[in-house]
C-alpha cells in the first residue's frame, strides 16, 4: 500500500513538474510594460519619500498597509501560540551553558543589540529595516534563554514586558497612520517629521519611526514565540 502510494505520488509529481516546466518556458521574456509601478518608484521615489533604499520606500511608504497586515500576521501567530501553550506549567530555568560561553556572550550581546538597532534605524539608507533588525533583537532573547537559562531571560524581560513592547510597537505604527488622517491626508501617509537632507539619518519623513515600531513589535513577538515554545524542555532538564 505504502509502496504503491509512493510510486503514485512520484508519478503525479513528475507529471506536474513537466507541465510546469513546459508552461514556464512559454512565458514571455520581455517585461517592459509602460505604465508599471517600477518606473514610477525608480524615478520618483527619492523626491516623494526621501528614502535612499527603494525597498524600504515601498515597504513602509508605498505599500505600508501590506507591512501592517504582515506585522498583524506575526501578532496573530504569537496570540495563537500563546493560546495553545499558555496552560502549561511556568518555565523552570536550565543552568545554561558553560562559564566561558556565558562570559563571551556577555561581551557580545551589547554589540548584537547595537547591530539590531543600527539595522532598524538605517533602514532607509542601507539594506535592512524594521523586519530584519527586529529579528536580530528577538535573537538576543533567544540567546539569553539558551546561554544563561530561561530564568535569566524571564528576569530581564518578563513576558509582560515583551507583551507591552509588542503592543506599543504596533500602536506606534497605527498611531503614525492616524496622524496622517489628522494632518489632513490619508491613513499611513508619509508625514513630514524628519526632513533633513536626503541621505542623512534624520530624513525620509516617518519611515524611521515606522521602522522602529515594526522592529520592536517583531523582536518582542518572536521572543514571545520562542519563550512559549521552550517551556517544557527546561522543566525536563531540571528533573534530571
Amino acid at each position, binding site marked *: 500500500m505504502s509502496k504503491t502510494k509512493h510510486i503514485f505520488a512520484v508519478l503525479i509529481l513528475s507529471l506536474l513538474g513537466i507541465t510546469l*516546466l513546459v508552461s514556464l518556458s512559454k512565458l514571455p521574456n520581455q517585461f517592459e510594460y509602460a505604465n508599471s509601478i517600477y518606473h514610477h518608484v525608480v524615478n520618483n521615489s527619492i523626491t516623494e519619500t526621501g528614502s535612499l533604499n527603494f525597498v524600504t520606500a515601498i515597504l513602509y511608504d508605498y505599500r505600508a498597509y501590506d507591512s501592517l497586515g504582515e506585522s498583524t500576521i506575526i501578532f496573530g501567530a504569537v496570540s495563537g501560540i500563546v493560546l495553545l501553550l499558555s496552560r502549561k506549567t511556568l518555565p523552570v530555568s536550565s543552568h545554561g551553558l558553560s562559564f566561558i560561553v556565558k562570559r563571551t556572550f556577555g561581551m557580545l550581546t551589547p554589540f548584537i543589540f547595537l547591530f539590531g538597532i543600527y539595522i532598524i534605524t538605517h533602514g532607509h539608507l542601507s539594506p535592512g529595516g524594521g523586519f530584519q533588525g527586529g529579528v536580530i533583537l528577538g535573537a538576543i532573547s533567544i540567546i539569553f534563554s539558551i546561554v544563561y537559562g530561561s530564568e535569566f531571560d524571564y528576569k530581564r524581560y518578563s513576558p509582560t514586558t515583551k507583551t507591552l513592547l509588542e503592543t506599543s510597537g504596533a500602536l506606534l505604527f497605527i498611531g503614525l497612520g492616524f496622524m496622517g488622517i489628522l494632518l489632513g491626508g490619508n491613513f499611513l501617509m508619509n508625514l513630514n517629521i524628519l526632513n533633513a537632507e536626503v541621505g542623512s539619518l534624520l530624513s525620509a519623513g516617518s519611515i524611521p519611526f515606522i521602522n522602529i515600531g515594526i522592529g520592536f513589535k517583531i523582536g518582542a513577538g518572536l521572543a514571545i514565540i520562542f519563550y512559549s515554545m521552550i517551556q517544557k524542555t527546561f522543566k525536563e532538564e531540571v528533573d534530571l
Partner: protein
Amino acid sequence: MINNFVFVVLFLLGFYAILVKKNLIKMVIGLNIMEGSIFFWFITLTDRGKMIPIVNGTQVASQLNDPVPQALILTGIVIGASTSAFLLTLIIELDKFTSSTNPDQIGGMIED
C-alpha cells in the same frame, strides 16, 4: 531557463515531502523549501541584471533593479516564518497527545 528548472525541482521536492514523508516535521521542512523556491524564482524572474535598488549618489535611477518584488518577498518571508512557527507549535501539541509525529496518526493528509 535554468532558474525555472531549479524552481520546479525545489517546488516538487517540497511537495514530495508533504505528500510522502511520514514525519510532520519533515513536512514543515518541505513547506519551507517550497516557499524558498517561489521566492528565489520571483527574484530571478524580475532581476534585470542591473544594480541593487539603493541609491548611492552616483547611480542613475534607470540603472536600478526592480524593488517591488523584493518588498513583496520580504513580506512573504515573514509570513512563511510565522506560519511554520505556528505549525510547529501544533506539532508539539499533537506530540503530547499521541507521542508521535507521524501524519498517519492524524488520519493522513488525503483522508477524512
